């Protein structure tokens, strides 16, 4: 499961030289990363956000050809994803356009970014937690705690026998669970027949490849050339991507910058106002994602990230427009 693998490898990178990390915890994290990549497994996990529960079946196979996985939504909107090494295909019922029209997550950050993450270190504490039982497996808990209140923490539960990640909670500074990902059942290590990896849904199909964003060095050059300046970010947040998109809906150019400490990330969107539209003023949230909107120099400026409300607000208030013509 490459998503997981990336998640964990980034965790490892970012935490590799962590001052607070205990070595057992780090070692477990490394084993977990490999397990997600190398094991065969077939299970159902639930993703919980607010009062909504989405069930997803995942079938993952790893062999000489690499990894392949199939994800099927079992509740809510019918949808299947097939991911192979470099291609993602989403299958959805005839006549229903998926709202999510892009890859939710690439193979992850460009490889050079991983190197950059070595410097993003001291912002989370990694420790071993308690042992318990999830989906009929003995698990070891791993706690990832931020050192300040500008980011969220994680609690991970890892199967003791296979090292597969079985549950992951995103938690705020009061310990509240904001989002939860958990296997309700899973078979690990069995044979995965070819048939299980074939799409079963008929309908429309949409494919896209895993793309890499503009390299950070290019992004930084673009950032320097931009009229927009961010005068405050939480410690450890660095620019990882910058791009100008054309919004499909109205053709407006939108500058998107992504800043990350390696684990949490924030996007800043700057969109020129083209017509009389209303815009978010102040903060709002959806699940673990907070957003803060404001209008600066005839632009809609929006900060979005899976970080606390105080973080997006503080970043939003730290955006400046520089008039270079003067």
């Amino acid at each position, binding site marked *: 499961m490459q998503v997981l693998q990336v*998640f964990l490898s980034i965790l490892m990178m970012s935490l590799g030289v962590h001052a607070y990390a205990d070595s057992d915890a780090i070692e477990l994290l490394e084993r977990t990363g490999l397990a997600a990549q190398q094991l065969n497994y077939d299970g159902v996990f639930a993703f919980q956000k607010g009062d909504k529960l989405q069930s997803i079946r995942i079938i993952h196979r790893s062999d000489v050809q690499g990894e392949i996985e199939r994800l099927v939504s079992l509740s809510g909107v019918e949808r299947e994803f097939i991911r192979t090494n470099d291609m993602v295909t989403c299958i959805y019922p005839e006549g229903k356009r998926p709202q999510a029209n892009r890859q939710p997550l690439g193979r992850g950050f460009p490889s050079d970014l991983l190197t950059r993450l070595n410097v993003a270190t001291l912002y989370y504490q990694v420790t071993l937690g308690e042992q318990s039982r999830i989906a009929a497996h003995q698990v070891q808990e791993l706690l990832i705690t931020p050192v300040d209140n500008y980011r969220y923490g994680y609690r991970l539960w890892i199967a003791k026998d296979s090292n597969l990640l079985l549950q992951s909670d995103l938690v705020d500074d009061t310990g509240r669970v904001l989002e939860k990902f958990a296997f309700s059942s899973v078979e690990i290590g069995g044979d995965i027949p070819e048939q299980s990896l074939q799409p079963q849904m008929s309908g429309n199909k949409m494919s896209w490849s895993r793309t890499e964003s503009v390299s950070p060095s290019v992004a930084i050059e673009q950032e320097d050339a931009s009229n927009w300046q961010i005068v405050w970010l939480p410690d450890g947040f660095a620019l990882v991507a910058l791009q100008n998109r054309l919004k499909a809906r109205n053709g407006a150019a939108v500058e998107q910058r992504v800043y990350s400490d390696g684990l949490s990330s924030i996007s800043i969107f700057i969109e020129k106002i083209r017509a009389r*539209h209303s815009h978010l003023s102040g903060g709002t949230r959806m699940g673990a994602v907070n957003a803060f909107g404001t209008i600066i120099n005839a632009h809609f400026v929006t900060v979005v990230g899976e970080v606390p409300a105080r973080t997006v607000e503080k970043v939003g208030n730290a955006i400046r427009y520089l008039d270079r013509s003067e």
Partner: protein
Amino acid sequence: MTINQNELLSAFVDGELQGDEFEQALQIVTTNEQARTQLQRYQLVSDVLQGHTLGNQYVDLTSQISAALVDEPVFTQASTTNKKSQVIPFPKQFWKQATGLAVAASVGALAVMGVMTQPQNQLIPVTPVAAIDTPVVTVAQAGNRWTVGEPEVEHRLDTYLLDHNEYAGASGVFSYARVVSYDAGR
């Protein structure tokens, strides 16, 4: 030009025609210059509203392209049928090429390619591996919608969230699930 004709043209722009209306609409558009101009204006307004125009430049290439096509062959059903067995190759590298371009041109939203209709196989239901237990730990009731209450603003935020998730690689598991469950929350 009757009101009904214009309503037909409006529905034509939206691809929302019933029964033999397509025939009617095409007949009107290809024989009546005024109707064609009308359709073109409706289409332009739709393009403007949907943001398909760039830098406020509107083009009309129809006449020049038609002129350029004068010497092109007129196809016949036979030539079409013969060639039907011939599949346009989807170059294997296409995805990469096109995506590379899309990135190079910074048109991220256009990186989606290839919408294919699957064979009409009967839908085979997927059997869940096991019944799903409701997780014991309660997740904070943070809501599945933006707490804005203004559709236009929420729509923009939705778009931003998708764009953000594309990069929010660090918390990959969450990003993926957020998007998979996205419509369910609507």
